[in-house]
């Protein structure tokens, strides 16, 4: 089959690889009908998250049709089912899964000795996302083996196009969880850093959860215009001071809730000198992340407020203003998304026409053009916001 394969920094190719096979009774094989490129894939493209090896298949936003199941799936999923595959692989049985903390499932990381060392404790196995999280082949391919398939799936009905359902795999529940973690109250003003696909979903989620005002921050006109369409007031961080504008919009008090949808690769620019220093330190391996957004959120958040982090951080971050964080009594909530905790509710909202996540798609191309689209998405060429690939 064809698959997008990681060969090194900025080198993803569309290779021909052997088809996946059932390895375990709880496996299923999916024939992929649609898959997408995520902002997290860009961190891997840049080799900023350690643990990728040449030959790894990319992709963790995938849906399709079940074509084969193992003997142990126990009727919970069968040939012909139409499923969206959550990016977190879950067993459904461990203590964490039972609590709904799916992204920290204790069972599914098959290389847990690595994660135990690096993170202190293992987290869930993830598709197409480094050997720290299991080194499972990803779904930017014609076929995907889904381990623990009896639990790791979201059944979706016929009659709704792929484009509306695909993002149940990751970015829609990710934006949603980011907003839910804020305990939004009707008077809240919610500031959201980053208007990429995850930020766009977080904006809509905050509106649907009843925020008084949503303020979205980015520097790309096309993304800001889409944020505005979703109901946000916008700030362009290249031409305006984020802290000043946020204080202006909140009577000098700062937003009650802050969401990070930008992550470890904050924009590097001279007017934010901390980003230059972070970039220099990253190059000589003195720091993993560029946590500019975290610093800004802690500084501008209203005392007693909540900071919700959806953006991915990989390792060590320097110079976080812990004094402000502690004295202002802030709460920080983080995490890879517990996808299946939210998807029943979100699928219902799609079916009832509350939201149609396909609004975010700007490019739909054949899988073979994937390598090119990584560059287009990374360089923000052609007003690219979200790429869907069709095997």
């Amino acid at each position, binding site marked *: 089959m*064809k*698959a997008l*394969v990681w*060969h090194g*920094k*900025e*080198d*993803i*190719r*569309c*290779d*021909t*690889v*052997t088809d*996946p*096979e059932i*390895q375990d009774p709880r496996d299923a094989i999916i024939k992929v009908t649609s898959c997408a490129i995520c902002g997290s894939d860009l961190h891997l493209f*840049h080799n900023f998250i350690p643990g990728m*090896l*040449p*030959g790894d298949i990319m992709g963790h936003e995938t849906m399709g049709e079940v074509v084969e199941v193992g003997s142990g799936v126990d009727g919970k999923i069968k040939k012909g089912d139409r499923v969206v595959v959550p990016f977190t692989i879950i067993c459904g049985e461990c203590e964490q899964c039972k609590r709904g903390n799916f992204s920290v499932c204790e069972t599914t990381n*098959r290389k847990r000795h690595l994660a135990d060392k690096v993170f202190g404790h293992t987290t869930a196995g993830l598709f197409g996302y480094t050997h720290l999280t299991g*080194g499972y*082949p990803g779904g930017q*391919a014609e076929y995907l083996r889904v381990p623990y398939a009896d639990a790791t799936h979201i059944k979706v009905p016929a009659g709704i196009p792929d484009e509306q359902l695909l993002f149940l795999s990751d970015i829609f529940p990710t934006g949603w969880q980011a907003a839910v973690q804020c305990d939004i109250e*009707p008077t809240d003003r919610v500031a959201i850093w980053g208007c990429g696909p995850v930020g*766009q979903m977080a904006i*809509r989620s905050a*509106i*649907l*959860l*009843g925020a008084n005002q949503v303020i979205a921050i980015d520097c*790309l*006109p*096309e993304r800001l*215009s*889409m944020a*505005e*369409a*979703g*109901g946000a007031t916008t700030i362009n961080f290249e031409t305006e001071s984020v802290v000043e504008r946020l204080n202006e919009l909140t009577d000098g008090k700062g937003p009650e809730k802050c969401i990070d949808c930008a992550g470890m690769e904050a924009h590097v620019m001279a007017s934010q000198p901390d980003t230059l220093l972070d970039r220099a330190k990253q*190059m*000589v391996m003195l720091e993993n992340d560029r946590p500019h957004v975290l610093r800004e959120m802690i500084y501008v958040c209203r005392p007693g407020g909540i900071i919700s982090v959806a953006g991915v951080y990989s390792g060590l971050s320097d110079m976080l203003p812990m004094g402000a964080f502690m004295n202002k009594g802030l709460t920080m909530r983080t995490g890879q998304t517990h996808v299946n905790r939210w998807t029943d509710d979100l699928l219902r909202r799609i079916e009832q026409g*509350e*939201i*149609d*996540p396909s*609004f*975010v798609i*700007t490019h739909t191309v054949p899988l*073979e053009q994937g*390598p*090119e689209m990584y*560059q287009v998405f990374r*360089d*923000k*060429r*052609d*007003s690219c*916001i979200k790429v869907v690939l069709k095997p």
Partner: protein
Amino acid sequence: MFHFSNIVRTKSDPKIIEGGPSLKRPADQLARALGWFSIGLGVVELLAPRRVTETLGMEGNETMVRAFGIREIMAGIMSLSVDKNAGLWARVGGDGLDAAALLSGLTGDNPKKGNIALALLMVGGIAMLDYRAAQDTKPRRPARDARRKLFPNRSGYPKGLEGARGAARQIAANAAKSPSLNPT
């Protein structure tokens, strides 16, 4: 067909049968080579500055050579990173500094001026490669003033923004009527 990367595959995970084309351009390879060259030269300058000054008949300038070594190493690391373009431009600038320093040693009484002339020639050649690579690896981000598509109609709410806000208000009102667990 043998592919090196298949060695690390877990048994029965997909393996590469036939590799597809890479989008790496020749300029990317050149940038890589220059990056490693920069680091190599930098290490020599940093650790054996005396060798360098003796060869050039410029004894007494060891501190400068060391500083240049650090510069070379930094530019090299940058040229190997995703910001290679910045690294290559830093190298072009560095080539200018190198040339200036060499010219300052090209005095009539320097017995090693032959070596300096040779070094100048080398710096010139490398500078041309640096400049070529920098030109060819320009980031392909659109210019700040480039025309962009805007998406003012992509609300994502089939029932419109007001519909979404209204539904949220309704839910909040209903929740307020029922007893809440949240202390207020």
